[in-house]
């Protein structure tokens, strides 16, 4: 560090000692003879470096990403057309569309698809509404504003397994905290694990709890970028606070809201850890009656509990197609919204 600094500080004197000079110091007064050859070699190296370095910088990312994400994506499609059993990995026989036929005729697939959809809806909508409200509150001038933000983000910094285990206990049938609190409101104990909607609701609350603060921060950032004059003119026109929120804040946040909707939707389609742990022993089944088996769980169950990897591949690709449809619908809606504005 120091040596290179000194060299740069005295370019003229250090240039005399040709061999040890850094490239920057050599270019300058020296022009003829042997140094010129060295210079052209150096400048060629320099030009080559300029040209090649961008590729060198992006290469590790694309090589690793390609090898472990993109290539497997294609192989999954390939395996989904084969009969691949966990018990006999070396025997892969062509199966055509059998895995898909098998899948689409299975009631458990449609059940998982429906559960993924309802749990996704149950977790995403309240989560984003709560986040919007929370960010609106955090946008006020607050005492200790950073502390509030950090506190609201703590659930995000909790491990999935830990959070799920706690909620499982909170939701337990007898002696659980939730039922105990409910009985003060005259509500009978609910079987959060066995009932259909109860278990889906319980799983959703874990997701809501972990992600609301995170989304609130994203909204808060976008809110702080809204120009104050918009509120000023709205106030001058006599808009109430609620009207300002509806007619200034929400429209200004629209791109951010769409962003969070897309991200949460993607998260919801991949839901895995929460329902797995919530189910305890029957985790991969999504409860005794498959009442909260998501597509992610279904794939794990078919692939690694039952051992049909070909079918698991078909499930994975179905998930991908569903995601693409969701993305396309999102895109269409965004266009619509933009046009109607």
């Amino acid at each position, binding site marked *: 560090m120091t040596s290179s600094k000194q060299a740069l500080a005295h370019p003229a004197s250090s240039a005399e000692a040709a061999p040890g000079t850094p490239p920057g110091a050599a270019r300058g007064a020296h022009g003829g003879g042997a140094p010129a050859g060295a210079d052209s070699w150096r400048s060629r190296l320099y030009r080559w470096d*300029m040209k090649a370095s961008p590729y060198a910088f992006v290469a590790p990312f694309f090589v690793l990403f390609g090898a472990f994400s993109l290539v497997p994506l294609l192989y999954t499609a390939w395996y989904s057309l084969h009969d691949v059993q966990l018990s006999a990995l070396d025997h892969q026989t062509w199966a055509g569309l059998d895995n898909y036929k098998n899948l689409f005729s299975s009631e458990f697939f449609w059940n998982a698809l429906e559960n993924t959809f309802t749990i996704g809806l149950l977790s995403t909508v309240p989560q984003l509404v709560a986040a919007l409200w929370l960010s609106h509150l955090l946008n006020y001038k607050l005492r200790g504003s950073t502390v509030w933000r950090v506190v609201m983000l703590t659930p995000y910094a909790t491990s999935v397994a830990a959070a799920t285990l706690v909620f499982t206990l909170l939701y337990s049938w007898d002696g659980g905290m939730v039922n105990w609190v409910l009985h003060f409101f005259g509500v009978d104990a609910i079987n959060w694990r066995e009932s259909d909607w109860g278990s889906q609701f319980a799983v959703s609350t874990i997701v809501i709890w972990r992600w609301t603060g995170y989304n609130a921060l994203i909204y808060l950032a976008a809110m702080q970028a809204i120009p104050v004059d918009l509120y000023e003119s709205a106030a001058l026109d006599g808009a109430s606070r609620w009207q300002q929120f509806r007619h200034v804040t929400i429209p200004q946040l629209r791109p951010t809201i769409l962003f969070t909707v897309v991200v949460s939707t993607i998260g919801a389609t991949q839901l895995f850890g929460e329902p797995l742990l919530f189910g305890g022993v029957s985790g991969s089944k999504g409860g005794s009656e498959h009442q909260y088996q998501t597509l992610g769980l279904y794939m794990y169950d078919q692939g690694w509990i039952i051992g049909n990897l070909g079918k698991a591949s078909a499930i994975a690709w179905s998930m991908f197609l569903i995601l693409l449809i969701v993305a396309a619908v999102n895109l269409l809606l965004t266009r619509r919204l933009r046009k109607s504005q």
Partner: protein
Amino acid sequence: MTTSELTLPPTAEVKRERRRVMGAGKQLHAGPLTYVVLVVFALVSLAPLVWTAVAASRTDRRLAETPPPLWFGGNLFKNLQAAWDQAGLGTAMFNSLIVAGTITVSTVLFATLAGFAFAKLRFRFSGLLLLLTIGTMMIPPQLAVVPLYLWMSDFGWSNQLQTVILPSLVTAFGTFFMRQYLVQALPTELIEAARMDGASSLRVVWHVVFPAARPAMAVLGLLTFVFAWNDFLWPIIALNQQNPTVQVALNSLGTGYVPDQAVIMAGALLGTLPLLIAFLLFGKQIVGGIMQGAIKG
């Protein structure tokens, strides 16, 4: 802060006028009701964690009674010890630290390099490649799991940590995140000046890019660490109970046939502790980073 505020210090009259005009927005002070609602949100955020500690300090039988315990008991260390032994949390924590640590370093390093190239360097197909990166951000990990499992078995790498580490060494999100940050945070003139001095690309990266990217690298590092620590699907497929990560170990604790709830809670507490410690130390930066990323993203 608006520019008018910066140029002329507001008089009392201007301030009063502004307060009259402003219905909402940043200038408005929070009323008592806001604080009440925020306290409720904060309690909901913190209560499950605090109660984990409460439950972890009790006995299993006491947990199943109504009303559930609301204050700490004396069994904490016994339960922590039991969870540590039963779930093999020592190995699991060590494994998770290795896995999440390696993934974090690699993701941040390669994301910074690629993000820098996308943000500041001109090269053929850069636009197309960036589009590809953004497009692949929504490929779910489920899509890669079956082939990865088959390949890793072929390699004889089942149950080994590199199996878990390799597929997560880079993320499209990380690259995009660093690109978004560096577009604005790294002045192009600074790179050009270094170039004029004849600095090689590596020197530019080391002396110009890394210092400029440091705040974003820290945030991406923390986000990646949380993500890697919480990864579930691939570790549970790739690793067995003898060599688990924390999530896999906690799963086995939760699915045990004679579950001791207090011990499970102790395990949950231990399993989330490293994340919470990191969060306590860097919470402010993470909060700032998420907000910054959101504006630019």
